[in-house]
């Protein structure tokens, strides 16, 4: 099963603004880009034309893994606003 099919089973209440901000300059200095691979929702993707990192914040499971593994401190990560984001029905 693809990860977006898994995420489609989850309940989310979208936040108006992204809780993850990417510093593109710091991100561009990183060659490994571990965020792309380790994100459990596979929400990070490099836009080839512009070489910019993008994150699909609405599917975020709020685990914080990307922030911890980011070697260049390129992610400003906070929780979504109160009541927004992932809503585990089982947990």
């Amino acid at each position, binding site marked *: 099963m693809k990860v977006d099919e898994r995420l489609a089973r989850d309940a989310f209440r979208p936040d108006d603004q992204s809780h993850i901000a990417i510093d593109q300059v710091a991100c561009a200095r990183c060659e490994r880009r571990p965020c792309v691979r380790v994100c459990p929702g596979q929400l990070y993707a490099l836009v080839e034309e512009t070489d910019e990192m993008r994150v699909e914040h609405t599917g975020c499971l709020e685990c*914080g893994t990307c922030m911890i593994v980011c070697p260049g401190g390129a992610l400003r990560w906070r929780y979504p606003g109160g009541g927004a984001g992932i809503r585990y029905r089982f947990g």
Partner: protein
Amino acid sequence: MAEGDRVDVVIVGAGLAGLACAWTLLGHGVEVLVLERGDQAGAKNLSGGRLYHGPLESLELLDGAPYERVVTRESIALVAGGAVTQVSFASDRLAEPERRSSTVLRARLDAWLADRVSGAGGVVATGTLVDGLVRDDGGTVRGVVAQGEEILARVVVAADGALSAMARHGGLRSELEPSQLALGIKALYSLDAGKIEDRFCLAPGEGAAELVVGEITSGLPGGAFLYTNRDSLSLGVVVRLDALASDAAASPPDLLHAIEQRPEIARRIAGAELVEYGAHLVPEAAPDRFGRRVADGLVVVGDAAGLVINHGITVRGMDLALVSGVLAGQAIAQALEQDDASRAALSRYDDLLRDSTVGQDIGRFAGSAETLSRSWLTRDLPAIAADMAAELYSFGPGPKERLSTTAWRHLRRRVLRLGMLGELLRLRRL
């Protein structure tokens, strides 16, 4: 007991640690405000999950709590190639009140506990994100900022989980490193209770807990778990974050996908419907290296304090969260009675924790996570076990050796050799 706009205690996070702390404080007549960012308690919480009841003694908060199944069947399997070497234990003795463990689903359990705390007079404000701490010039914590508003309190309890922004703001720990954490991802499969009982050989209400290590994590330190809930299965994998962050590692969804394809797992989840997918970080470093637990006006409990012990064949965190919440509540109540919320007064919590049975376990097993991260356990041991078992259980063209000779030959060649002895000695830490 409130003075002006100040509440006695603000608790950040309505998880097990925060709610146990709130319950204990209410029992001492202390006013509590629990702030929870989810739109209900448990909405942001994810555990494996099973709860060990033994260390909780008789925590009244849990009376009648919605557990899934009492675990009466345990197993751990080492997988290598197509081979599975498994040790299992099934016994009513696992269901004895003193040593029982239950599978739980946090969204249900935490919401139920929050209702109990509300019923006892506590205020649980959901949908409320705490932005940071209010600190005076001397650095003493005087409250929190929630959604742009200051809420003053005599004591703040950081029960905000493994990432704990509160512990960091309070200066009790530095930024977390990948080596201090493991990533857990979990798929919840809905399956009829009768089918669960058939597939796992269970009586109604009884549960199974299966761990799988070895190739199942592509050799990464960690393991997979499969727990039975009332009418669902929790299938997940927990892997150390430093190993996962290395370039050669598979992505977490690929790991989970590969696990689901393995025959021993596929048969268990056949026909079951995926109803939820989640991810959560788990403290992995020894709690005492995770950070300090007490500052002036601030106390850290549960995952936020790194209170998880990995024993290898069992992993526990929820019982530690509940116990730490209770002990923090007792210490805070006493400190407030003396009108002293200084670090010195609140450090009674640290003393109570250290002297408690879980505190002794924390000290004793401080090195276990390191021991379990040794790659031979997940890479070599499953293959050694499989090679030995294949000979023990079969008859080749030549004469049969005594069982002890076969076993000794494998141990001598592959385990009792230089380089491996140090690894074996490390196992004493478990």
